[in-house]
């Protein structure tokens, strides 16, 4: 584009779009060990029971013991196999990774950290690569929303919810503390160390503290396709240094009366390798992050069945973008962004009768944004959410519904802003179990939801005021879940299938213009998404210490542009949306050894709205393998693993001009004291 668009693009893209990668991680327990535990707990059954399948809305989850099986270094890696999920990965150890569920884009997925949303009002998307897995207990993706009624209003306010739950202290009087230390190394010059310390103070109080440090030079080889070169190039300026710490204090009077408080810090400094530009391989931009939050949760259940959930959070997200060579008057760009949020949530639930529950949640949030960019508006956004929800069970039926009322108000120090906005968003969900003796359930949901324009969309270099309406989505879903516990060749089979339709209106699209005075965002988009998600999971019983595990997820998505019938992209598949994705994960455990194979197949996509061969990004098939071994040395449990990613060294990119690494290795070692 011409001239002035450049500053906007330069800093809007790098400042937010590429972030770190951190740690990798490896489960504390390899699966061999964990399955042994599981078996002991379930002595009364001969085989293993199927994992519980959430039936009301499509739900997929992974726990700590699964991470190694998926060669996962961070949260983004862990969930890439989920059906309906498209991870936008800019490649490399410092590359931004965001989630798009059912083609709705990252802004429609709320990411929860121990139940409280990690909110980013500035650009509306969370970089999942910055969450290492060393203190993660469980990751779950809820399409629609979680089934639980007692939750903050924000959990009801997105098209999907990605929930990250951290490890909680599990100590007893005989084991007053536990220390876990790990190290990882491998390709990209990776050096990752982490430490977790759990300490029991007394019967009610316990602390858990985590620190995770990552250094990587970020270099990898890639093939440039189209510039006539026949040698491999090396990705440079991708080095990363990051530290993530989380300290939490837990108070547990009983299961129905508990409290915790988290202090969390993430700091990172990295180079931004940027898009691969033909004939100009140099880049020197840098990004620094300093994020801090404190969050507290109190949960109480009274005998009357009244439940209370309080959540409070204060957060500050600081970003610095530096381009040391920029042809403005100073000769460089050095921009600072600070986003501060105060958040409070109250949720109440009450069991009216044994089969009828109601709840009410209210969340208030105040966000202030500061940036040292030209003509900035310094916006503040106040959001108030109120949700009334109910769940009712009768015979073969379960019905749930809620009504969300959103109030949004913005103020600016410069320029103008839109009127306050109020939106009512209903959700209806139902399951039906036709056969009493079978775990076969039919489900359906309808959810109307929206996402407001981000503060960047509204105010980033907004020379002319931008009036942007929220982006609305109507989600329709029909599917079934089926679980069968077996007692022969297989322990169990679970199968879930959902067909869905998403109707997106007022889609917010960036409209770059020759003239930055008009360079803007507008609500011109309409997208119709039709898709099918299928998930299958099974495992064999333990036989002579051998066990096999298999899971497969398939996604079909037809996401077509319905914006403008006269446009050449009308009825074309929207950018970066593969029609078919298949993720397979197969593992074999023998005693203390586990070997896993992960395969992701994606058909080709287009990187523009025109589905012509000029703009085609080829599909890919990526295989990863991992081997993990757990043993005890001097009574201390030790686990070690080797991972090989992109085993067949396939040259591919998920985002055009952002090549993914070829074959890479990772070694991990962890000891628990």
């Amino acid at each position, binding site marked *: 584009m011409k001239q002035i668009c450049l500053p906007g693009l330069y800093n809007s893209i790098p400042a937010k779009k590429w972030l770190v990668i951190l740690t990798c991680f490896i489960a504390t327990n390899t699966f061999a060990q964990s399955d042994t535990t599981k078996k002991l707990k379930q002595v009364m059954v001969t085989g293993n029971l199927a994992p519980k399948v959430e039936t009301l809305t499509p739900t997929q989850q992974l726990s700590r013991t699964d991470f190694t099986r998926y060669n996962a270094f961070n949260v983004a890696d862990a969930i890439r196999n989920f059906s309906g999920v498209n991870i936008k990965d800019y490649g490399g150890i410092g590359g931004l990774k965001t989630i798009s569920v059912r083609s709705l884009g990252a802004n429609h997925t709320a990411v929860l950290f121990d139940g409280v949303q990690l909110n980013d009002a500035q650009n509306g998307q969370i970089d999942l690569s910055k969450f290492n897995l060393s203190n993660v207990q469980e990751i779950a993706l809820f399409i629609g929303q979680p089934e639980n009624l007692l939750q903050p209003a924000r959990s009801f306010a997105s098209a999907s919810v990605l929930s990250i739950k951290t490890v909680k202290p599990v100590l007893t009087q005989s084991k007053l503390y536990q220390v876990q230390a790990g190290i990882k190394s491998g390709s990209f010059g990776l050096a990752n160390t982490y430490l977790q310390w759990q300490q029991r103070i007394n019967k009610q109080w316990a602390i858990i503290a985590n620190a995770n440090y990552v250094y990587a030079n970020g270099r990898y080889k890639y093939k440039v396709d189209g510039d006539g070169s026949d040698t491999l190039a090396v990705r440079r300026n991708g080095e990363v240094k990051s530290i993530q710490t989380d300290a939490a204090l837990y108070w547990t009077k009983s299961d129905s009366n508990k409290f915790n408080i988290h202090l969390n810090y993430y700091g990172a400094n990295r180079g931004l390798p940027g898009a691969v530009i033909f*004939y100009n391989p140099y880049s020197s931009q840098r990004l620094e992050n300093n994020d801090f939050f404190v969050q507290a949760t109190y949960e109480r259940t009274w005998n009357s069945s009244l439940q209370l959930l309080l959540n409070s959070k204060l957060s500050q997200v600081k970003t610095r973008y530096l381009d040391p060579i920029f042809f403005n008057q100073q000769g460089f760009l050095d921009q600072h962004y600070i986003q501060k949020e105060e958040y409070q949530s109250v949720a109440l639930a009450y069991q009216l009768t044994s089969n009828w529950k109601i709840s009410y949640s209210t969340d208030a949030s105040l966000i202030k944004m500061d940036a040292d960019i030209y003509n900035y508006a310094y916006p503040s956004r106040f959001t108030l959410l109120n949700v009334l929800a109910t769940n009712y069970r009768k015979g073969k039926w379960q019905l749930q519904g809620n009504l969300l009322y959103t109030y949004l108000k913005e103020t600016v120090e410069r320029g103008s802003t839109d009127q306050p906005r109020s939106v009512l968003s209903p959700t209806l969900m139902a399951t039906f179990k036709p056969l009493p003796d079978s775990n076969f359930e039919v489900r359906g949901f309808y959810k109307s939801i929206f996402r407001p324009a981000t503060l960047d969309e509204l105010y980033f270099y907004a020379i002319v005021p931008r009036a942007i309406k929220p982006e609305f989505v109507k989600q329709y879903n029909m599917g079934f879940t089926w679980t069968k516990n077996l007692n022969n060749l297989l322990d169990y089979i679970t199968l879930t299938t959902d067909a869905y339709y998403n109707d997106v209106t007022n889609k917010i699209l960036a409209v770059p213009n020759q*003239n930055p005075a008009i360079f803007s965002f507008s609500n011109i988009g309409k997208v119709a998404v039709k898709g099918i998600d299928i998930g299958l999971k099974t495992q064999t019983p333990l036989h002579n210490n051998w066990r096999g595990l298999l899971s497969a997820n398939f996604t079909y998505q037809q996401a077509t542009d319905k914006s403008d019938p006269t446009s050449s992209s009308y009825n074309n598949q929207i950018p970066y949306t593969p029609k078919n994705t298949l993720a397979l994960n197969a593992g074999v455990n023998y005693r203390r050894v586990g070997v896993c194979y992960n395969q992701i197949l994606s058909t080709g996509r287009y990187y523009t709205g025109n589905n012509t061969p000029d703009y085609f990004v080829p599909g890919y098939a990526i295989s990863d393998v991992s081997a993990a071994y757990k043993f005890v040395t001097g009574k201390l449990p030790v686990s070690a693993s080797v991972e090989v990613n992109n085993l067949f060294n396939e040259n591919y990119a998920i985002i055009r*001009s952002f090549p993914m690494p070829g074959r890479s290795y990772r070694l991990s070692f962890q000891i628990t004291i």
Partner: protein
Amino acid sequence: MKQFQLKTLLATVTIISILFSCKKDKNVLVDQPVATAGVYVLNQGNFGANNSSLSFFDYTAKTTTSDRFNAVNGTKLGDTGNDAKIYGSKMYIVVNVSSTVEVVNAKTTKSIQQVKMFNGTVGRQPRYVVFNKNKAFISSYDGTVAIMDTTTLAIEKYITVGRNPEQMVVSNGKLYVANSGGLSFGNPDKTVSVIDLNTLIETKKITVIANPVSMAADSYGNVYVLSAGDYSSILPGMTIIDNATDAVKTTSTTLSGAYGTSIVVSGDFAYFLTSDNKVVVYNVKTQTVAKTNFITDGTAIKTPYSIAFDSTTGEVFVADAKDYASNGQLFAFDKNGVLEKAKGYPVTVGINPGTIVFVNK
């Protein structure tokens, strides 16, 4: 229709004469006026996507090659092709972010040389090219104008000008360079550098409306400068410079062009695009607006992104960038401002078609 038939006939004759290029037919060619073989459209592509492309519309075959640079050379232009011009037998394609000038054979598009525009490891970000006496002058965002010999393709000198120079024009033995300063938000440059073409030295800077981008010159001693303003208090507008005294003759905010598109002058008329999607015809002899919109048949162009005038036919060409994200279109209007549907227009071109170049047979 009449014009179409004449054109077809002419093209057919020319093709036949090329196909059977017997020596005795040579006179036929010489006697004919210069005929256009087709039109190149340089598409900028999307930022950071290396998908700048060179569409070619063949007048005779009425077919479009979506990226002739890639089809002929097997490589791609890279990121953000910003300008292309033909001088002699060569075409010079200026690629902004890739920081290259691709020199190709104008007729065949075959690559002659890729000239890298770097200062150490820093891409200079070249923007536009103009020519004078076997030298190419290339403006770059790093505040320089490079002088390249059109025979050796070697860069002989860099002249320091103002901030973020954009378009240039040669007039009265001088090179005028629009110093936009457009990369400093809120603080654009507001000068035009004057370079003496004999000494190749910047002799002065003329103050114009802030953020000058587009330039053209007429045969009456006027240099036209379209500025974008500062997007808030300073309005966009046109500055007219006297090429004898280098004094500013007129500044006007009623005359203003669409951001970054070209103003073209042919004979007594200048043509430029406005921000409200019109093609203004300006009489340079009388210094008055001749037509507020050249297009007479109501053809709607969503996002006019570049303009060209074919002086051999009197046709006006406008490229439409649509939504800046999908393929654009090329429109050609006859001298009466009517879309030439019979010739196959509009023609689909690439993303962000920013430059139109006619190539002769």
